[in-house]
């Protein structure tokens, strides 16, 4: 039996001396070159991430150096049973759908208009892009002044139309205002990306459609939209990631009020961490936000993948 085994060609091959073959280093030159980068990545990202997970199961003491006191699932139980937190998630979702939806619709509309403009398109594009270059905090401050009931331009305009209330003083008004401020700032980005996509639509196909007598909406529906849908998807992905983290404008204009109407999850996370210094609970909220962001990103990436755009 042993002899039979020895005579097996497979085993024979495995017992062949290998001294002659050059030994491959376990970590190649490229691998060694990547080590500092990997260490840096671990320091900046992986270690804090693990710390965040540990914090979400702990109570964090600050005085005399940061210390963690394990509390088991306490923070997570609180997270899932906190009705205020669920309201914040609901507001975040509504906010997300409204801002991203409006920005996509308006951005697309502006891009289509700009695409038809032949003269001075660059000047117009520069003007359209201006809001995008303002920092969100500046947009918030600007919005606050424009909606101020004493001297705000928008308040004055609304008053002349018969609106007697205060824009940021009512829950609906405040929510609408912060949504529109974000839309004002970021619609140009969608317009820019869409315009780039429109430039890639073959002119010959459009001309052929025109020769065939296709009306404008049919050209849009069957030629333009299919051609730019991938670009729109990328724009949607970029804006979605930003919309989930929206913070500055709300913080500057309403602080999350009135009546919590604009308190979306990032605002609640900030106040839990840096106003109440409840870092354990804040870590749980932060991890949930991260999971939500990953879910949204994966959804879009999967969509892009099915169209072969990630390859």
């Amino acid at each position: 039996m042993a002899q039979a085994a020895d005579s097996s060609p497979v085993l024979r091959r495995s017992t062949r001396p290998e001294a002659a073959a050059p030994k491959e280093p376990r970590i190649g030159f490229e691998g060694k070159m990547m080590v500092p980068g990997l260490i840096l990545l671990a320091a900046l990202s992986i270690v804090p991430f693990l710390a965040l997970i540990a914090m979400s199961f702990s109570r964090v003491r600050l005085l005399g150096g940061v210390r963690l006191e394990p509390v088991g699932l306490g923070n997570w139980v609180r997270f899932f049973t906190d009705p205020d937190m669920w309201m914040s998630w609901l507001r975040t979702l509504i906010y997300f759908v409204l801002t991203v939806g409006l920005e996509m619709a308006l951005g697309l509309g502006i891009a289509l208009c700009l695409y038809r403009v032949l003269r001075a398109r660059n000047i117009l594009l520069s003007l359209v892009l201006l809001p995008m270059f303002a920092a969100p905090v500046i947009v918030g401050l600007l919005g606050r002044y424009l909606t101020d009931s004493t001297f705000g331009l928008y308040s004055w305009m609304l008053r002349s139309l018969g609106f007697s209330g205060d824009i940021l003083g009512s829950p609906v008004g405040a929510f609408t205002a912060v949504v529109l401020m974000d839309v004002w700032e970021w619609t140009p980005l969608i317009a820019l990306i869409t315009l780039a996509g429109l430039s890639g639509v073959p002119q010959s196909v459009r001309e052929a459609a025109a020769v065939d007598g296709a009306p404008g909406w049919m050209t849009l529906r069957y030629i333009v939209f299919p051609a730019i849908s991938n670009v729109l998807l990328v724009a949607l992905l970029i804006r979605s990631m930003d919309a989930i983290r929206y913070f500055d404008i709300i913080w500057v204009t309403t602080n999350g009020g009135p009546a919590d109407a604009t308190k979306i999850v990032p605002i609640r996370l900030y106040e839990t961490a840096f106003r109440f210094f409840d870092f354990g609970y804040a870590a749980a909220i932060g991890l949930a936000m991260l999971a939500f962001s990953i879910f949204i990103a994966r959804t879009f990436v999967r969509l892009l993948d099915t169209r072969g755009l990630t390859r």
Partner: protein
Amino acid sequence: MDRYPREPSRRDVLRGALATGASLTLAGGLSACGSRSDVVRTAGGDQWRQFKGATLNFISENTAPTAAIAANIRPFVDLTGISVNIVTLELTALVQRVALDLASGRAQYQVVYADPYQVLAPYQRGLVDLRSLQADPALPDLPGGITDFIPTQLDAAGRFIDPGAVYALPYDAPTMIWQYRRDLFDRYRSRMANDLGFDPTPGGDRTWEEYFEIARWFNKNATSDVKYGTGHQARQHDSLMNDFSNVLWSYGGDYFDDGKEVGRMGSRDPGPCRLDSAAAIAGAEFYNRLLGIADPASRTWDWDGVGAAFRAGQLAMCPNWHEYAASNEEVLPGKVDYAPLPKGPAGTANMYGGTGVAISANTLPHERGAAWLFLVWATSPQTQLANLRSKAGGGTPTRTSVYELPEVRAAEKRPSPMPNMLTAAAVRQAWQSDRIGLRPKIPMWNECNTAIFTQLSRMLTGSGSPEEAMRSIKSRVDRIVARGWVA
């Protein structure tokens, strides 16, 4: 041995660069983690110059007294040879920096503007008990002694639970009072008296109901002068809790049992919240009604907003912090006057928002000495007097002796070189122990406060009745207090 020196290969160069980088990083890291050096102390000689050459960092809210101190720091530098860097921030940002600085175990900021509710109560263990420095014979004593501070303010801003220990010296004393357009009240007094059936002159005898009637009268009869009779700091913000609390207390409601003691000395376990009492609900109902006739923009104003609207001539009166007097006098000279807040069924309450200056417990021994010199100087009667005269702002003194000075007494009347002193008659009444409004000094106050002003904001926007708001606050505050506090 090679005949010729070998040329270093690309790999050698990269390896060398990596090693150099790593060693530099390590050296930098180790030096950063190494022990800190204390400031040099010169034994003997002038007590005030023993820490000459030291540098202190003072972190403060962007308040008027600190603006005055910053503008007038030269005398301290000349006296001590100590440089002072002053960092001023909005209160929320200040609390964050202080908390993180205390957590770091190092004192980037040796001197801290210690808000009693957001810094002192939660982080009292991170602050130095100043008695140790006061008892040091090598350090200068407080001029006039610690008893020269207004007693209620010393307890509220400087102590926490332990009646002996002092963690902060009272540094500013903003207090909410009734600010009104004297010119308009003078013009309309007789008409108002006829229409309303009482003398509308603002003062401690007026009731909140009368305040309401006066505001409504202005809404109807003086629209050519002002848009609204009253305005409030009712944004979903700390300011809303302050504004509401004046009414709450005057109606006999309170946040906790023994609220005055919880406000004055503080507590780690204040017991159940009492905002569901009938008196508290009555106060909330009145406040809701009052805001119903106030400028609608009140729901977007904190103290800055209501102050600006008042100065812009939009309001006939408002409750606001007394230290806004200087700004009022600048814009509306001689047209504004001040009174204690109106009374309710249970009396008068005027919210006190004063703060002390403290020393971080992470400071090294000699740094503490230098910081103590700054505290002594910054709260001294001479400095407080200079602040009163400062063009850069300045609050009002926290020392009784300053109020007794003849020039300060004289400044209580117009024309006044110290415009904040025009409020003296009102705040003197407001600071009496039965009239001063002290919110709960508990470590978890920040979260409780957020629950309070959020539910109040819901009430003011019609999302819930006053009773629902009070009951909701009670249940939330009880939950927060039950979770306790770790720091």
